[in-house]
C-alpha cells in the first residue's frame, strides 16, 4: 500500500509527463479525494517560479562579485605586510633601500611587467612610490608621477586584452562620452547607473580619476569618477623619450618653456615634462586646436609645414598644472616622411623659421619619437 507522500510523488510524475490535474488524480484512485487538490497546489507552486535574472541585473551582480574578489585579493596581500606602517618613514626607506640593494635589480625587473592582481604588483607600486619619495625636486617627482600614470594605462590595456578582472584606479583625460561609455586616455570606461560621479557634469577634455574594475568584456566598469585637481599628474599620450628618461635618471631639472607659465595661467615657472604626440587635427582655432578629440593650446607653438584640418601631425607639448595640453612645436607628418633630404613642396607655408625648426627638432629627438 502506497503512502500519501508516495502517491503525491506519482501525481507529480504524471503532471511532468503532461497529464492534467484531473487526469493525474483519476490515475491515482487510491489517493482520492485529497490528491487532486494537492496537485492543483503543486501546479501553482510551479507557476510561482521560473523567474530569471535580467541581463542588466546579472551584469551588475557579476561586476560587484568580481570587484569584491579583487578587493579580497588585495586585502590578502596587504595583510601580509600589515606590520610595515608601524615603522617610522625613515626606517622604512632605509630598509627598502638596503633590501633593494641586496636584491640588486632582479626583483624590480621581475615586477616591472606585473599588473593589478599579480603577486609582484604590490612590490612594483612600492618601488614606484619609493622612486617618487626619493626624488627631491618637485619637477622630477611630477615627471615620475606622470610616467607612472602612463604605466597604469598600459597595465589596464594588458588586463583588457587578457580579459582579466582586477580592481584598478587610473588618471586620464576624458576624450569621449557616448551612451554611458566613455573613453579616458584611450581606455574604454563603462559608466553604470551605480557609479559615483561628481556633482558637476564632467566634460570632454577634463582630467579625471577613474576607480573601477576591468571586466572580461574588454572595458573598465567604473565605480567612481572624480575630477582631478589642477596640478595632478596625468599620463602623457606617448611614452617618454630616451632623453627625458636620461633627465630622470640624472635628476636634472628640465628647461622651462618661456610660454609655459603664461599659458598655465600662473606667473611662477611650473615644473613640466615635455611629451611627443602624433594625431590628426580635427579643428583649428586661433589659439586652440582639437587634435584626437583633445583641446590643445597652440598659441605659442612653433608650426612647421602646411597643416590643415584632417592632416596628420606630430607635436611636442606639456600639460600645464590645470591640465591643459600646451603645444610648443607642431609639424606636419608629411614633413617628417621627407627626412631623407627631399624638400617638402609645402615647406614654404611654414609659419616658423627654418632655424627655429631645426633647433626644436634637435632638442626633441624626433627620431626617437618616430620609433615609438
Amino acid at each position, binding site marked *: 500500500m502506497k503512502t500519501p507522500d508516495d502517491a503525491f*510523488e506519482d501525481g507529480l510524475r504524471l503532471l511532468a509527463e503532461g497529464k492534467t490535474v484531473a487526469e493525474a488524480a483519476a490515475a491515482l484512485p487510491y489517493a482520492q479525494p485529497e490528491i487532486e487538490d494537492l496537485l492543483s497546489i503543486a501546479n501553482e507552486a510551479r*507557476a*510561482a*517560479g521560473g*523567474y530569471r*535574472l535580467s541581463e542588466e541585473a546579472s551584469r551588475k551582480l557579476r561586476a560587484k562579485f568580481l570587484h*569584491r*574578489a579583487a578587493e579580497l585579493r588585495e586585502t590578502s596581500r596587504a595583510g601580509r605586510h600589515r606590520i610595515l606602517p608601524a615603522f617610522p618613514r625613515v626606517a622604512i626607506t632605509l630598509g627598502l633601500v638596503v633590501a633593494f640593494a641586496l636584491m640588486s635589480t632582479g626583483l624590480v625587473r621581475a615586477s616591472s611587467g606585473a599588473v593589478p592582481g599579480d603577486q609582484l604588483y604590490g612590490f612594483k607600486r612600492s618601488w614606484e612610490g619609493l622612486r617618487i619619495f626619493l626624488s627631491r625636486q618637485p619637477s622630477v617627482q611630477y615627471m615620475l608621477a606622470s610616467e607612472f600614470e602612463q604605466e597604469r594605462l598600459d597595465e589596464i590595456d594588458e588586463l583588457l586584452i587578457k580579459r582579466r578582472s582586477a580592481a584598478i584606479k587610473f588618471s586620464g583625460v576624458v576624450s569621449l562620452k557616448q551612451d554611458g561609455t566613455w573613453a579616458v586616455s584611450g581606455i574604454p570606461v563603462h559608466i553604470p547607473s551605480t557609479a559615483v560621479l561628481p556633482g558637476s557634469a564632467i566634460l570632454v577634455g577634463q582630467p579625471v580619476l577613474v576607480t573601477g574594475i576591468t571586466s572580461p568584456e574588454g572595458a573598465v566598469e567604473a565605480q567612481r569618477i572624480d575630477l582631478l585637481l589642477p596640478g595632478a599628474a596625468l599620463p602623457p599620450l606617448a611614452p617618454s623619450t630616451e632623453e627625458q628618461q636620461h633627465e630622470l635618471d640624472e635628476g636634472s631639472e628640465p628647461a622651462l618653456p618661456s610660454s609655459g607659465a603664461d599659458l598655465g595661467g600662473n606667473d611662477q615657472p611650473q615644473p613640466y615634462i615635455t611629451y611627443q604626440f602624433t594625431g590628426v587635427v580635427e579643428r583649428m582655432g586661433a589659439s586652440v586646436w582639437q587634435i584626437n578629440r583633445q583641446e590643445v593650446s597652440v598659441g605659442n607653438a612653433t608650426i612647421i609645414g602646411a597643416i590643415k584640418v584632417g592632416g596628420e601631425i606630430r607635436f611636442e607639448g606639456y600639460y600645464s598644472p590645470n591640465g591643459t595640453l600646451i603645444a610648443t612645436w607642431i609639424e606636419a607628418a608629411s614633413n617628417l616622411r621627407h627626412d631623407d633630404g627631399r624638400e617638402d613642396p609645402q615647406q614654404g607655408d611654414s609659419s616658423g623659421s627654418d632655424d627655429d625648426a631645426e633647433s626644436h627638432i634637435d632638442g626633441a629627438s624626433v627620431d626617437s619619437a618616430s620609433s615609438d
Partner: protein
Amino acid sequence: MYEYIRLSSGGWGAAPLMPTREEQQFANDLRTLDARALAAVYDQYSDAVYKYVRYRLGDDGLAEDVASEVFVSLLESVRRGAGPQTNVRGWLLSTAGHIVTDHIRRSYRRPTESLDDEHPDPAPLPGEEFESRERTRRFRTAYSRLTAEQQHVLALRFGEGYSLEETAAVINKNVNAVKALQFRAMQALQRVLGEPDHEDA
C-alpha cells in the same frame, strides 16, 4: 569519480546536482580567487541562485541583493579556507537558504510597509491575467507562512525543478525525509489556502 549522475525520479526537468568533473574543477579554481575562475563560477550558478532566492522572497530587487550576498559569502568562505569542497551548486543553494531565512527573520523584527498595498496598479487587468496574478499572490502569501525548511524544500523542487534525490543532496537529508517534508508542506499550503481570509492572518 565525479562523473555526471542524472537522477530522474520525480524531476521537473531538473538540472544536474551531483558533483561532476566540472563542479570539482570549479571548486578547485575557487580557492585561487582567480578572476577568470570566479567569473566562470558566477556565470554557471548565478541563475540557479537567483531563481531559488526569488522563489523564496517573491521580490525581484530583494532577490538580487540576497543573491549578491550569497556570492560574496562564497568569496569570504573561500578566503577563510572554507567554502565548497566538491559541490559548488549545493553549497551555494544551501547558503542561499540560510541567508534568506536570516533575512526573513530580520524583516519580522523590522517590518516595512509594502508599496503595493498603498499604491495598487492604476489600470485594471484583463480577467484571466487578474485571476492568474491573484492565484500567484494567494499562493505566495500561503507559502510565506510555511516553516523555513518547508519553504526551502518547495523552492528547490518547484522553483529550481530538482528531483527528490537532488533536493536531498542539497538539504542533506535522505529521500524519504524529503518526500515526507514536501508532503507536509503541501498539506500546510492546502490548509492555509483553504482558510477563507488567510491573507489577513
